[in-house]
C-alpha cells in the first residue's frame, strides 16, 4: 500500500466480535493494518450504550453501542460489520443487518468515519466478495484481500475445530454436567455471561457451551429438530441442545433481554425437549449478581437431588 499514513481500524468488542473477531483481526493483520480494540465490557460501557441506543433494543445492541462510543476519536475508522446472510438458509438476526446504518445514524454528529464489510449473499455479496470490497476500501488489491481473508478464515476454522474437540472431550468426563446454551456474545462477554460461567466453575460443575461447536455440526443437528430455524447463531443453541441432551443433567438457557430469535427458539426448545431440567436466565441491565446466583444455586441443588447426590 502506498502512502505512509496507515488507517487504523477500531473494532468494537461486542456482538459478532466474539464469533468472527479472530477472522477480522487476522485479516487486518495480514494486510498490515493496525487495529484497536475497545476495552472489555463493563458497567460503564453498558450504561453509555443504554443512553445511546433506542430504548426497546436488546441488551447486546446497547452494549455494542457503548463499545462504539468508547472507540470514537481513538481510531481513523470504526469497523461495523453488516452480516445479513450466507444464502437463503443461513441467515442472521435482522439486528446485524441494520447494525452499520444504525451506528452511523446514532453517531452522526460525532464526525467519526465508519467502515463495513457487507456480507449479503442473497444480494450478490457473498463472504469472499465482501472481504474483497472491505480490502478495496482500505486500498488493497483484490488478490491481497482474498489472500488475507483465506489466511484468516483458516485460523478461525482451526480455532473452532480445536474448541469443538475440547468440548467433546469435556462431554466424555464423568460428573454433574450442564449445558450453557446461549449466543456466544452473551456467554463470552465479561460483564454479561462470565459471572454465570464463573459461578458454575466455582460450584465444581462440568459445563458445556453451545457456542463452542463448529457451525456445520450444529446446523445439521438443528435442521432435523427445527427445519425453519435459519438464524446461524440460534442454530447453534438449538443444535447444541439436541446434540448433547442425552448426556446432560440440566440445561441453562441464557438470553439477553429481549432477544428476538431467542424469544421463539427457546420456547420451542422448552416445548420439544422432554426429560431434562431447563433453567431460563434472562439477562437485563440489572447490576449485581445476587439474584443470578440464587437461581443458579437452587437449580444445581435440584439437579443434584434428581441425580441422587446428597445436597
Amino acid at each position, binding site marked *: 500500500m502506498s502512502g505512509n499514513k496507515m488507517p487504523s481500524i477500531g473494532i468494537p468488542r461486542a456482538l459478532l466480535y466474539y464469533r468472527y473477531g479472530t477472522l477480522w483481526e487476522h485479516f487486518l493483520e495480514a494486510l498490515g493494518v493496525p487495529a484497536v480494540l475497545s476495552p472489555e465490557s463493563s458497567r460503564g460501557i453498558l450504561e453509555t450504550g443504554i443512553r445511546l441506543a*433506542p430504548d*426497546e*433494543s436488546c441488551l447486546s445492541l446497547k452494549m455494542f453501542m457503548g463499545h462504539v462510543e468508547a472507540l470514537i476519536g481513538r481510531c481513523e475508522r470504526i469497523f461495523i460489520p*453488516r452480516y*445479513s446472510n450466507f444464502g*437463503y438458509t443461513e*441467515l442472521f*438476526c*435482522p*439486528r446485524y*443487518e*441494520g447494525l*452499520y*446504518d*444504525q451506528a*452511523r*445514524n*446514532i453517531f*452522526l454528529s460525532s464526525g467519526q468515519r465508519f467502515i*463495513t464489510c*457487507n456480507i*449479503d449473499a*442473497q*444480494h450478490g455479496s457473498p463472504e469472499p466478495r465482501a472481504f474483497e470490497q472491505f480490502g478495496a476500501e482500505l486500498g488493497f488489491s483484490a488478490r491481497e484481500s482474498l489472500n488475507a481473508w483465506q489466511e484468516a478464515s483458516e485460523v478461525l476454522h482451526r480455532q473452532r475445530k480445536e474448541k469443538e474437540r475440547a468440548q467433546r472431550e469435556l462431554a466424555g468426563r464423568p460428573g454433574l454436567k450442564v449445558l450453557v446454551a446461549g449466543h456466544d456474545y452473551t456467554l463470552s462477554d465479561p460483564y454479561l455471561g462470565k459471572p454465570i460461567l464463573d459461578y458454575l466453575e466455582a460450584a465444581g460443575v462440568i459445563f458445556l457451551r453451545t457456542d463452542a461447536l463448529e457451525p456445520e455440526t450444529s446446523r445439521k443437528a438443528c435442521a432435523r429438530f*427445527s*427445519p*425453519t*430455524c*435459519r438464524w446461524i447463531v440460534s442454530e447453534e443453541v438449538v443444535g447444541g441442545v439436541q446434540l448433547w441432551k442425552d448426556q446432560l443433567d440440566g440445561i441453562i438457557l441464557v438470553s439477553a*433481554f*429481549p*432477544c*428476538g*430469535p*431467542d*424469544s*421463539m*427458539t*427457546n*420456547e*420451542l426448545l422448552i*416445548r*420439544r425437549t422432554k426429560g431434562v431440567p431447563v433453567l431460563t436466565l434472562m439477562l437485563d441491565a440489572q447490576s449485581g449478581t445476587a439474584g443470578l446466583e440464587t437461581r443458579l444455586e437452587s437449580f444445581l441443588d435440584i439437579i443434584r437431588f434428581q441425580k441422587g447426590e446428597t445436597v
Partner: protein
Amino acid sequence: MKQQRNVALPRYGEYNCALKYVVEQGFEATCVLPPPLSRRTEDLGARNSPDLVCTPFKTTLGSMIEALENGADTIIMVPGACRLNYFGELQEQILRDLGYTFDFINLSLYNTGKAVDMLQALKVLNPRCNMVRAARALYEAVRMVEYLDDTTSLYYQNCGFDPTGSYPKVYRKFISDMYAAQSPAEIREGYRNANRSFADIKLHKPRDPIRIGIIGDYYTVMDPFSNLEIEQKLADMGVEVHRIMNLTNDMLRNREKNKQAIIREFSEYSMGASSTADIWQALTFAGQAFDGLVQVKSAFCIPETDIMPVLANLSRDCKIPVLYLTYDSQTSDVGLMTRLEAFYDMLEMRKKVVP
C-alpha cells in the same frame, strides 16, 4: 375421496377476502374466515405465546385458534424476512400442544427464493385442482388486493372531510362486496361502485389540510385492529391520512433497488424487513411537505426499532415531526387518543408558524 378442505389464514386487515377468492375460485376448497380480531383473539394469543415475542405473533396465533374453533382443518402461514419466517413452526407446535388436530401449511419451508416452490406447496389444498385455474384466480386476487388498497387509501384520505357521514357506509359495502365476489366481473363491479359513490359525495376539504403519513411494520400498520384504528382516529380529527405501506405498493409496484439508492444518505444497506420501504416512505412524505409522520410498530419489532435513529436524523434534516408509537397487547384506546390529540395540536400550531 377426501372431503373438501376448510382452509384458513389468520386475519390480516381485510386481505383475507383475496385469500378466500383464491381458495374458493382457484383451488375449489372452502375458506374459513376467522372472526374479526377482538380482545378475545388477543387474550387467546397472548396467553399461549412466549412473553417477549412481537405482538403480531400473539394476534395471529389467537386468530388461528379462533379459525380452528370455526371449523378450519388446514391453516396456512406465510414466510417473511424477519422473525415472521419462524412464526409458523412455533405456532404449529403451540396449537398441537393445545390439542388441536389440523394440517399446517408452513410456507417458510418453501422459502427458497423461487416462487414455483410456493405454488407447489399450495397444491396440497386440492391435489386434483387445475393449476391454470389456480393461477388465474391468483391473478384476479392480486387485482382484488390492488382495488382494496386503492379504495382504502382513498377512504382514509377523504373520510375526515365528509359532512354527510356516508363515507364509512360506502367503504363497508365495498369490503363486504369483496368478500362476496365470485368472479372478476363482481370484483370490478364492487370497485367501480365504491369509486362512483365516493365521487358523488361532496367533501368539505380546506385548501391546505393537515396531512400525516403513516409508516410502520408490516402487520401492525396494515391491520386496523392491531393499530387501534389509528387511521380512522386521525381522520376523525380532520386529517388527511396517507399510508403508502400496503401489499400493493410494497410487493406489486415498487422496486427495492431504487428505494435503497434514494435513501442512501440515511441508510446505505437494507436494515431488514420493512426498514428500507419505511425510510423511503418517510422521505417521500417529507419531500411532499407533509405535516407529520407516525411510526406504528409492535413491541419488540427488531427492524422498526433499528430505524428509530435513522428516523430521528431524517426528522431533523427534513424538518418533519415524527410520533413514535409502540403497540403491545395491553395498549388501550385512551392513552393513544391523548398522544394523537397532542400531536395533532402541535402540528396545527406549527402549521400557523411554519409556512
